[in-house]
């Protein structure tokens, strides 16, 4: 029982990580570096898009990614917490 919960929790956790890290790699390595020259063809205000992503936009995205992570993980923990008397041994000994 405990194993089943632990595995499901871990799988959900890894899925969250994979999603967020995909965005992380896409915005920094793909948009900020590999496609920066191409994206520079688009402008908003005084910024060229590629330059802006490389120097500022990516940082805003990183902040959002970590905030989303905190939020998702809290939700995931809360969902498994209902059964955590089985999945958390420390809780078990205290109970």
């Amino acid at each position: 029982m405990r194993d089943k919960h632990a595995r499901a929790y871990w799988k959900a956790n890894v899925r969250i990580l994979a999603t967020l890290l995909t965005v992380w790699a896409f915005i920094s390595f793909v948009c900020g570096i590999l496609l920066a020259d191409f994206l520079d063809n688009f402008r908003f205000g005084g910024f060229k898009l590629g330059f802006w992503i490389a120097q500022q936009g990516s940082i805003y995205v990183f902040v959002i990614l970590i905030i989303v992570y905190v939020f998702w993980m809290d939700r995931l923990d809360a969902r498994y917490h209902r059964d955590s008397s089985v999945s958390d041994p420390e809780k078990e000994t205290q109970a």
Partner: protein
Amino acid sequence: MNVQLWTYVFVALSFGLYIGIAVWSRAASTNDFYVAGGGVHPLANGMATAADWMSAASFISMAGLISFLGRDGAFYLMGWTGGYVLLALLLAPYLRKFGKFTVPDFIGDRYYSRSARMVAIFCAISVSFVYVCGQMQGAGIVFSRFLEVDITTGVIIGMTIVFFYAVMGGMKGITYTQVAQYCVLIFAYMVPAIFISLMMTGNPIPQLGFGAELTEEYGGGYLLDRLDSLSEELGFATYTAGQRATQDVFFITAALMFGTAGLPHVIIRFFTVPSVRDARKSAAYALVFIAILYTTAPAVAAFAKTNLLNTVNNASYEELPSWFSTWETTQLIQFDDQNGDGRVQYSGDPAINELTVNRDIMVLANPEIAGLPNWVVALVAAGALAAALSTAAGLLLVISTAVSHDLLKRSMMPGISEKQELLFARLAIFVAILIAGYFGINPPGFVAEVVAFAFGLAAASFFPAIVLGIFYRRMNREGAIAGMLSGFLFTAAYIIFFKFVSPESSTPENWWFGISPEGIGTVGTLINAAVALTVCRFSPAPPRDIQNMVEEIRLPGNVPTVPLSHQSH
């Protein structure tokens, strides 16, 4: 009041504050000394992490480097912030759940091996030493310019202050001092940036002013367009276009990201919060606090560069503003009137260029270049010192913990009492400060360059070992040790060869696949992971209890873990 008087006032006030906090937060136990008692609020930990993290290199050098690198400067910006995503997602919560004191603790226990612990201790100490040299040099530059004392005296003042609060308070003292230092440094960074943005673009938010139009006084048009055309006019590369080879930028960015996530002084900050949930939260706070400075830096770089080009180009030497001669005396700006016309020709063509500007002064001189009031200039000095000292303290703590806890208590003399361990920890900090001071007075190179190497080494040694230790249950001690050693040795050898043995051959043609020594840490990281995974396949799986431990740190963690003082070792 003149700049110097203001500087004395700000430096005295901020140093007084740090000492006051040190006295208030004395450490009584090893638990206090190593992890500040484990009860730091995530918000406070986020601020302390930000200060710990933002070093003299971030504060003094980064904007200057960016202003000379143009768009390629993005590898610092993305590398040093993107690494936080890795840190927050892949390391911080699990290491907190693991619930010990240090990174070698994790490596040693996870890989059930004294040799693994030794390798980790060695990597932690060398990475921290390389990095702390840069901090001490940064402090020396600031002191020599703003307090008009020589660098030696400046470094000694800085060392004494750090000594006081690090030795007394350990992690506890350092944590709360760093919270204060964050406030000082961010205020000092933002005030001139806001002033300059307002003056040049009429927009008080530098992040927006960066893409805004210049005021009439500065010639109108978008700031970045003006900077591009000014640069081209003078024979420099276009500011907003990339200059370096794409793969080099790619590898440097990745090396800085992996390095950020592998830096022991940042990782240990996550051992100080009460729970796993708090570790995640404090990583988010830390990145928000860091992002405030990191999104301002490229704006500062563009403002400073535009101002510099506007002010000095073709100006008559006699009529240059006073900041020019002040910085000339420190030799950080050098004017050599080659054609003897008494005017400054600043050009991308070395044959006719007459001006050499050290990149490190762009932030420090920026307020003066923009003609801001004296107190702003002095404030920047206090902020730069806060940045250098906070990081130095965090690094010294890693060195001291590695010696007293990992090396003595857990490896060589397991029988020592807590009191003795604490004494050794304080002694280790003392010795480390002396060595760091020596390198501050006899610096080995540019601040940011030296720091960039520390990242390569941290990336190539720790990052794969920790991540594989959490995400790959089958990873065993043979694999981890072989991986750490090969990653570290490869990276160190490449850097040492191109930087110290044969610096003249350090050109893109000679680099492997065009990857500069700054970016080689990424290759080292990959080598580490590849070697670890290969060796692991040909050696026995880790024992059952280790595999259980890995399962354990993966479990949901919103229940606070057992208080550290109740743990058995």
